[in-house]
């Protein structure tokens, strides 16, 4: 009888200990993630400058500012990395899922503004200071990365509108080209019926918005005659064939 009750107590006590330690860890993670969210907001605020009338000319300066702030991001992730046991990434993933989507988005936006190209996964991971592959430790989840790209599409549709307001009539065409590439890419994926799928469904509205902008420009003769995108494309094609 005594042995039975003792084992009872032992079993439940060890579980109690388990949930207590887990609870503590969660608290610590939450604190770091809160700081990380703050940084993400700060970067986004900086990048919002491009929507201002003067913003287009200041793009390099804005990006540089954002790049500096990414150091904080790397610092926070490093801290988080030291807290989360390497084989339990997905146990606590929910805590930083949203913030890493947000950060992928701001990283992708920075890269787009700098080079007008799609951020690579490796590039994003490097900017965030995490690994690409799960086996290497604290990494950037693929679904989070893709979610970040969809946030980017949202932002760029808005950017197209504002760049016209600021008098840059060339930009929407380039943006449209970029977005259609993104759409093409996402159409290759077989998405499950989850949040990523839902977000993807809104991509077509962003595309539509940009097409409307271009339509408005072209019927008023504001669209440049020589399409800058296709010209660039042609060049790069020839290069590719040449090599």
């Amino acid at each position, binding site marked *: 009888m005594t042995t039975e009750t003792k084992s009872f107590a032992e079993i439940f006590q060890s*579980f*109690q200990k388990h949930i207590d330690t887990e609870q503590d860890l969660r608290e610590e993670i939450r604190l770091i993630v809160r700081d990380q969210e703050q940084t993400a907001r700060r970067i986004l605020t900086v990048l919002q400058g491009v929507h201002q009338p003067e913003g287009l000319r200041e793009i390099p300066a804005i990006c540089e500012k954002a790049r500096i702030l990414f150091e904080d991001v790397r610092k926070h992730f490093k801290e988080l990395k030291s807290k989360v046991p390497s*084989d339990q990434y997905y146990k606590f993933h929910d805590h930083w899922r949203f913030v890493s989507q947000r950060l992928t988005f701001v990283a992708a936006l920075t890269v787009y503004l700098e080079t007008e190209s799609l951020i690579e996964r490796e590039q994003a991971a490097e900017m965030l200071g995490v690994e690409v592959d799960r086996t290497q430790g604290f990494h950037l989840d693929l*679904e989070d990365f893709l979610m970040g790209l969809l946030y980017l599409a949202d932002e760029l549709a808005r950017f197209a509108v504002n760049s016209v307001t600021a008098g840059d009539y060339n930009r929407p065409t380039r943006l449209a080209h970029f977005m259609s590439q993104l759409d093409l*890419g996402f159409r290759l994926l077989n998405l499950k019926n989850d949040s990523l799928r839902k977000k993807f469904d809104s991509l077509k509205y962003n595309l539509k918005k940009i097409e409307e902008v271009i339509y408005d420009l072209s019927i008023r003769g504001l669209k440049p005659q020589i399409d800058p995108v296709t010209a660039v494309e042609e060049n790069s094609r020839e290069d590719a064939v040449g090599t």
Partner: protein
Amino acid sequence: MSEDKQDKKVAGGPPWKKGGRGWKHKIQEDGDDLSKLQHQVDESLPCVKVFRKFQEELDAKHDKYENLVKSSRDLTIESKRIIFLLHRITGCKEETTEKLLSEASIKIKELQSGNLRKIAEQLQDEDIFYYLRSISPGLQEYVEAVSFYHYLKDNRLVGFEELQADLVFHEENDTSSKEDSLLSKQVLVPLPPQDYMLGIADLTGELMRKCINSVGQGNLEEPFQLCHFIQNIYDAFLSFGNTPGREFTRKIQTLRQSLKKVENACYTIRVRGSEIPKHMLIHVFNEEISENLECDLTV
């Protein structure tokens, strides 16, 4: 053929639903476009190359998840069968009890070397928490079955470590040629403590059923033992509170109901057991339970 179907739909559906149908139709077209697109896409585009990689990775993840869901369902079904088998023990003679227990033990072993091993192999080198939601119902049912077995066999609560130890498999069994290189390698299904506890909470439901059955068989000793056992578990769960997760709160409520039924059963046996013939007792008892259930519902 598809046109016929659509015609029917138009004829059958109310006019105000036409818009909806049209939209659905459009989606379908989109789907067709998509499959065409898949063949037509210019594979040399850099963005296509990048996304092809993503596609592969996502598909692999989804496939694995689905496979694990299937394994988990099988695990649930088999575990349920074991529980039913164990319920048959109530009121049996010594030898039949032994026979049923050994039969259950064999089934559990089969489950471990078959289904659970398969799950372990699929989870190898993966972060188990990514796939946890796919297998956790199966794992809980398994914990319920095994802990029920151990309770009936030794009248005790099986420990977490004991269950985990059963879920470690050594690779050398099935690879005779590569035996040397893989000798040390092992695969395991990591059992999360949360799932263990939730399985134990389910166990109390089975114990409650067993208690009612045993009264039906005229056994007036067993309910008191079971009551004591469930009380212990209930006390522990209360002390956890709802920190371990939302599921716990729900389970605690069910646990409380089971416990109440068993306690009422014990009460009835004490009060009226001596005055009513055994075979009548079960009727009294069932009435009381249904009354109690009604009360619970109204509250």
